[in-house]
Structures are given as structure tokens and as C-alpha cells.
């Protein structure tokens, strides 16, 4: 919880919350606007093009120009559409994207065991984030599930076939990847011991191995949860290579085929807002968020901003890079990846992490020392993990063989 809310809520606290919310909205919108520009510019360079360069310096204001244009475009609602839901859907898609953003600690000084709070001129102590609910991570999961409703309802209410297919894909994809997303998050929660975002950052801000290597969760949880999270997160965002929901070459525009004008722009905006938010979540959960050394000159809380946005930029670039490089998955391949690889892997890894934790705390008492226990647990876990994966592979191959035989195909020849 934010310190200023602990001793009862005064009118000043409400005002402070409002100011913070407005500021966060501004930051979020500006970041989204810049992200649209950044993506267009970077992908243009990756594709040997120039990209937007007319509106404003380096074309930075292109998004603004596009937004203004979208406002004045005709807003067409198809005849067969469910008018109310059709109008509602873009907002349903935008709202969760912003609500998730409120969870993210944008700055603050976490170096040297500091708590990351800033003291305002009024004497109130607060975090540099809109809200720090004790259920932080769960709230994120809830919002990312809710975000799919916008897409689903948009596709369904359009009363047309391509959007319908897009929305069916969206719901299937969301359900599949939510599980992988949650399980990889569980690893982070396990090592942190709490759900609050600030707590997760504070845990990572402590000095790690040898005092040099940071104590970031990507290292602490052993990379696998991070890899799973990035993949599942990309799928959750419907970004390439998992952008089946709006696969242009297959479904024209996917769920937003029938949308035009500002309603379409809202979908577009929420998509990029989600991208920014997801990159910020990755940074917070696995890369210590605003945690980083205080290099002087600037006040400590500002260094938090600097580190946070530097890390954020790296992941935003990674998302653009994915888009420029990878072909799109097919629907069934996407499901295979989710259910047959990511979910078993993150589940197995979570159990391994839990086992190691128990052993390191010395609660196992199999060998004489906790260290010996840890080694034993790691060895046994990996054997179990490998055997488990072997079984899974065998089961998958067998299922595939039977499926092919049922279809009258020879499995040896299909390969």
C-alpha cells in the first residue's frame, strides 16, 4: 500500500490520487503516441524505408495527425451490427490497457535498500505509481483477461464473418496463453513472496550475486519463466508473430474489419497502449523496474525514471524486432505452442523452483547440509523434468500418429 494512504484517507490524499491518475494517463498516452511513432520508424528502417518524416521533427507528430484524421472520418456502423455492443467494444478494450498501467512503479529511488518513496512538499510520502494494491500481480492478470472482451465483443457484434473468426481466435488464444502467463508469473511471486509490484521491485533492487550482478528475477528465476512470459505476453498482446486475431492476409482486418474512424483508432491505440504496458510489466517483473544505481547529479527518484524508461525502450524495440522478422504462426501451431510447450514447461519449472527453495531453507534434511540438499533437489528435479518431457513428447507423438491414422494417412510418409 502507498504510505500516504495508511493513516486514514483525507481530502488531500484524494486530491493527490487524482493528480497521480491524471499524470499517469498523460504519461501513458504520450508513451503510446511515441510508441506508435517509434514502431513505425524502427520497422521502416529495418525494412529499408524512411517511415513517417513529415509531421513534426522526425515525424514524431504523425500519430497526432492520424488521430485527428480518424476523428473526422465517417463513423460507419454496419447494418447487421449489434449497435450498442459495437460502440462499447473499443472502450472495453482501452480501459484495461490503461488500468494495468496504473500498477507500474515508474520511478523512485530503490538503491541501497531505500523504499522507493518520494516525499512531497506537503509532507506526504508516496510511490511513483498510481496505485500499489496488495494484489498487484493478480490485478494485472485480471485486466489482461478483461482486455480480450473488447476484441471478442467487437468481432461478435460486427455481424460479419471475418471479424467473427477473428474474435473466436482471440478468445481461444487468450484462454490458452493466460495459463502460461499466470504460471510464469507464479515463479516470480514465489521468489518475491508477495504480489505487490513495489515489493517485487524492492526485492530485485537488493545486491545480488557478488554484489555486481543485479538480483533481477530473470536471473533469480532461471530465465525460463521470463522466456515463457515474453512469448505468452506477445500472444496476449496479439502482436506478431502471434497476431492471428487480426491476421491481415487471412482475415482482412480480423476483429476490427468493420470498424472505421475514431472507433478503429481506439482499438489501434489500445493495442499500442497494451504493448507499452506489457513491456513495462516485463521490466518490472524481471528486470527490476526502476531499480538501478544512483549515479548522482540528478535526484535519486529521477534515476528511477531513467532506468525504467531505458529498460522499457529495450523491450519495445524487441517487440518491433519480432514484428519485422518473424512470419505469423498458424492457429493450430499457436495452440500447440501454448498447451504443449509453454504450459508444461512453466508448470515444471515452478515446481523445480519451489523444490529448490524448500531445500535451501534447510527444511528437507535429507543430507547433512542445506547445500547438499539443494544440489540433490536440483539433480532430481532435472531428471524428473527430462523424464516428464520425454513422456509428454511420447504422448504427443502417439496422439499425432493416431490422428493421422484416423484420417487415413500414413504417419511415416507425412513426416
Amino acid at each position, binding site marked *: 500500500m502507498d504510505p500516504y494512504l495508511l493513516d486514514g484517507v483525507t481530502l488531500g490524499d484524494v486530491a493527490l490520487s487524482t493528480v497521480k491518475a491524471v499524470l499517469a494517463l498523460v504519461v501513458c498516452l504520450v508513451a503510446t503516441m511515441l510508441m506508435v511513432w517509434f514502431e513505425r520508424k524502427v*520497422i521502416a528502417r*529495418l*525494412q*529499408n*524505408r524512411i517511415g513517417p518524416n513529415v509531421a513534426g521533427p522526425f515525424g514524431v507528430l504523425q500519430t497526432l495527425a492520424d488521430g485527428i484524421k480518424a476523428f473526422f472520418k465517417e463513423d460507419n456502423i454496419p447494418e447487421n451490427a449489434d449497435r450498442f455492443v459495437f460502440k462499447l467494444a473499443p472502450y472495453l478494450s482501452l480501459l484495461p490497457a490503461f488500468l494495468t498501467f496504473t500498477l507500474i512503479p515508474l520511478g523512485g529511488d530503490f538503491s541501497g535498500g531505500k523504499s522507493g518513496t518520494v516525499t512531497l512538499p506537503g509532507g506526504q510520502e508516496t510511490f511513483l505509481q498510481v496505485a500499489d494494491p496488495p494484489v498487484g500481480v493478480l490485478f494485472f492478470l485480471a485486466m489482461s483477461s478483461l482486455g480480450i472482451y473488447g476484441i471478442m465483443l467487437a468481432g461478435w457484434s460486427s455481424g460479419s*464473418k*471475418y471479424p467473427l*473468426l477473428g474474435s*473466436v*481466435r482471440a478468445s481461444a488464444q487468450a484462454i490458452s496463453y493466460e495459463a502460461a502467463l499466470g504460471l510464469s508469473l507464479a515463479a516470480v511471486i514465489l521468489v518475491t513472496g508477495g504480489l505487490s509490484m513495489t515489493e517485487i521491485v524492492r526485492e530485485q533492487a537488493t545486491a545480488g550475486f557478488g554484489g555486481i550482478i543485479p538480483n533481477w528475477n530473470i536471473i533469480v528465476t532461471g530465465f525460463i519463466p521470463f522466456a515463457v512470459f515474453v512469448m505468452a505476453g506477445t500472444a496476449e498482446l496479439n502482436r*506478431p*508473430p502471434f*497476431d*492471428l486475431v487480426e*491476421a*491481415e*492476409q*487471412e*482475415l*482482412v482486418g480480423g476483429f476490427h474489419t468493420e470498424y472505421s474512424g475514431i472507433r478503429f483508432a481506439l482499438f489501434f491505440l489500445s493495442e499500442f497502449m497494451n504493448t507499452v504496458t506489457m513491456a513495462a510489466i516485463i521490466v518490472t517483473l524481471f528486470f527490476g523496474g526502476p531499480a538501478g544505481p544512483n549515479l548522482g547529479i540528478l535526484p535519486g527518484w529521477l534515476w528511477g525514471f531513467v532506468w525504467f524508461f531505458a529498460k522499457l525502450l529495450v523491450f519495445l524495440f524487441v517487440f518491433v524486432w519480432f*514484428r*519485422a*522478422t*518473424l*512470419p*505469423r*504462426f*498458424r*492457429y*493450430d*501451431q499457436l495452440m500447440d505452442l501454448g498447451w504443449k510447450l509453454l504450459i508444461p514447461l512453466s508448470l515444471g519449472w515452478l515446481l523445480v523452483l519451489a523444490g529448490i527453495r524448500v531445500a535451501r531453507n534447510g527444511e528437507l534434511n535429507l543430507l547433512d547440509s542445506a547445500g547438499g540438499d539443494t544440489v540433490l533437489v536440483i539433480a532430481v528435479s532435472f531428471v524428473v523434468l527430462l523424464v516428464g518431457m520425454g513422456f509428454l513428447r511420447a504422448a504427443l507423438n502417439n496422439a499425432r500418429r493416431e490422428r493421422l491414422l484416423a*484420417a*487415413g*494417412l*500414413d504417419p511415416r*510418409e*507425412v*513426416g
Partner: protein
Amino acid sequence: MTVTPEKIGSEETSATPTARATRTPDPEGGQLDRLPRRHAVLRMSEVQAAELADAPLDDENEQTMLVNMGPSHPSTHGVLRLMLEMDGEIVRRSKPVIGYLHTGMEKTGESLTFLQGGTNVTRMDYAAPLFNELVFSLATEKLLEVDIPPRATWIRMLMCEINRIASHLLFMATNGMDLGAVSMMIYGWREREQVLRFLEKVTGLRMNHNYIRPGGVAADLPDGWRDDVLFLLDMLPPRLAEYDILMSGQPIWRERLQGVGVLAAEEALALSVTGPLLRSTGIARDMRRDEPYLAYDDVDFDVLVGTRGDSYDCYAIRLNEIRESMRIVRQILDKMPSGDYRVQDTKVTPPPRARIDESMEALIHHFKIFTEGFKVPEGEVYVAVESPRGELGCYLVSDGSPTPYRMHIRAPSLVNLQCLPHKMADGLVADAVASISSVDPIMGEVDR
């Protein structure tokens, strides 16, 4: 000139057809039995489709839905329209609907002289225009019974192979785009643009060149052409190696294409499929080798075949045909003879520009050739060449006048489109896109 499928099949089927659903023999026997997936063709008229759309929903029986893909759709390569009967995301039956780009070029050809014909046919397969001009010119020359000089022949070969490279690069671009690798679209076009720049330097135009004409070519190769060709030959190999990194070796790419849109060899033969699509099924049929025209006898090249007939084979064959074409171009550079670039037959060839200034007769001669045209002896003829898309044929009938009595182009895109329902049957809609892409139809050629 038509080759019966049986003949090719017995000689050159180098691979067994890929595994397929157990097939029941056709009670009537014969050709249909060679199409195990003929049920995949949706035979439904527009009227029936419209009636279905108006019919009240019946949840009990209606398990499939009818989706129109195209004529205006991002991945139907122009204005191809597909009527898909879909069971969820799975395409059960389909029907390609063509005619949205019909321009009546074959009919127009009957009112244009043989010299003007080139400007007409070049607009059919606009990704490989020189092949259209070539086949039309070869047919006209066969009727005229003129032999063109060796340099003209070799220039034609050079230009056609370079055009084949450009066309296959366009395929690389669109295939990448259809599968979601959008950067590939730009890369393919980037390289194609370099190739087109050379074509522009030689012919004056990027496309629709009207460069190959009855009697030879419109102009000799410009100064420095050798350097330009060498530049292309140096530029392309590293770029193709990049494609290999970006696509061929990419796990997602392989997953998306391998085993998708499989066509069996006998299906392909029964449907008269030609070109890379036929070769992908393992049948080594290439007009350049099997019925050599121009001077393809004198150059050394391989006919590339696949083994599975899937979309990946189609992709790999086209990628490597670019390399094969470059090999041919290298040989042409060594063997390019000197001499005339067009036949010195005053009946067909206009007088040189310099003579027109000096001689009244030459001026009249020039005027007559370009207004009235030259007369072509009575007869009918069929000539076929290997275009990037398959066997491109030209059937020409002359009644002795300066315009053809009938001109027909056997367009490989049109014939290859027939296999689409068979390739797409029981695949996902994403695979349908991959199948369309691997057929690589050019709608201008389909509708003519």
C-alpha cells in the same frame, strides 16, 4: 504440341505421390479417378449462394459457413475471388471465381497488327511481360517463316532469364507477405527493383516493355550492359543468402509451409498444372529443356524438382530457380554473339532511322509498316515457352491479313488455378492463403 499427361507421367515421375487419404475408385473410371479430392471443388452458382444467404438459420444442419475471400482481399493477389465453404477455420470446399480483371485482350489482339500485338500481350502476365512478348513473337515468326539472327536470340534469352529472376523475386516478396513476414515483402521488392532498373535501361520501361518484337528485339543492348548484368549477378547471391536466413531456415516459416497445400503428381498432371508447381510434385518438366526454343540447347542448367508437392517445395524451387537463372545469365554473358539484333527482312523490319531522312521510299516503307502492318501468310501455329509460372503458349491463326484471325494465350496462371480447391481442401484458412501464394497467379494473365 499438346503433351498428353500419360506420356510425361510414365517417363519422368521421379517421386511417388505424397501420402493421401485412402481413395475410392471412381465408378466411371478414367481421368476423374486421378483426382482423389475432386469433392473439394465447390460447385455452387451465385444464385444458389444468394439463396443460402437469405435462408433462415437452421442450427441443426448448418455446420458450415460460406465465406467470400476476395475479389478485394489482401492475399488474393489482385482480384481473385474464392468462395470458401468453411467448417470453423477449416476450408472444406472452395471455388475460385475469376473474371474480375477481364479486359478482352485476346479479342483486342485480333484488331491489332502483328507488330502492335506485342504491346497487347505484354500486359497479360505483368510480372513477366517479356515472356508474353517472346511467345507472341515466336508464333508470328513461325508463321512468317523467318529466322532471326543469333544475337537477337541470345538477347531474348538474356532478357527473359532476367525477367524470370524479377518475377520470382516478386513471388518471394508476396509469399513472405502472405505468411506474415512483412519485411520480406520490402526485401523482395528491393531486389526486384534493381533487376527492373536493368530492364528499364535496356527497354525504356520497367514493365510492359514491348521489347521483343516479331523479327528480333526493339533495340540492341545499351553500352555498358555487361557491367549492369554483372552488378546484378554480384548483388543477388548475398541477398538470396539473406532470404535463406530469414525464411528457409526459419522454424516458423518451415512449419507454415511444409506439408501445406500438398499436390500429388498425378493430380497435377490431371489438372494440366505446369511450371514450378508441377516440378514441386517431382515431375521434371521444363519447356526450356524438353522442347527447347531460342538457344536453350546451348546453355547448361538444371531443372529443379521437389519431392512432396507442398508449398515449401514451391517456395524452394522458385528460390533456387533464381540461382539457376543467374547461372544461365552468366553463360549468356560468355556466349553473346555479335551481329544484328533484328532480322534484315525489309518485309518485317522497318528501315533504320538514318535512312528515313535520306530516302522518300524508306519513309513510306516505315509508315506502311507501322500503320498497315506486314502481311502474315495463312496458317495456324502453337508455340510454347517456359514462363516463370509454367507453360505459356500462344495459338495464332492468320488469314493472310496484317492482323491475326484469332489469338489465344494458354496462360499458366489460369490453368494452375484449377488445382487450388484440391490444394486447399481440409486445410485451415491460413493454409489456404499459403496455397494461393504458392500457386502465384497473376490475375492479368488469368482473365486476359
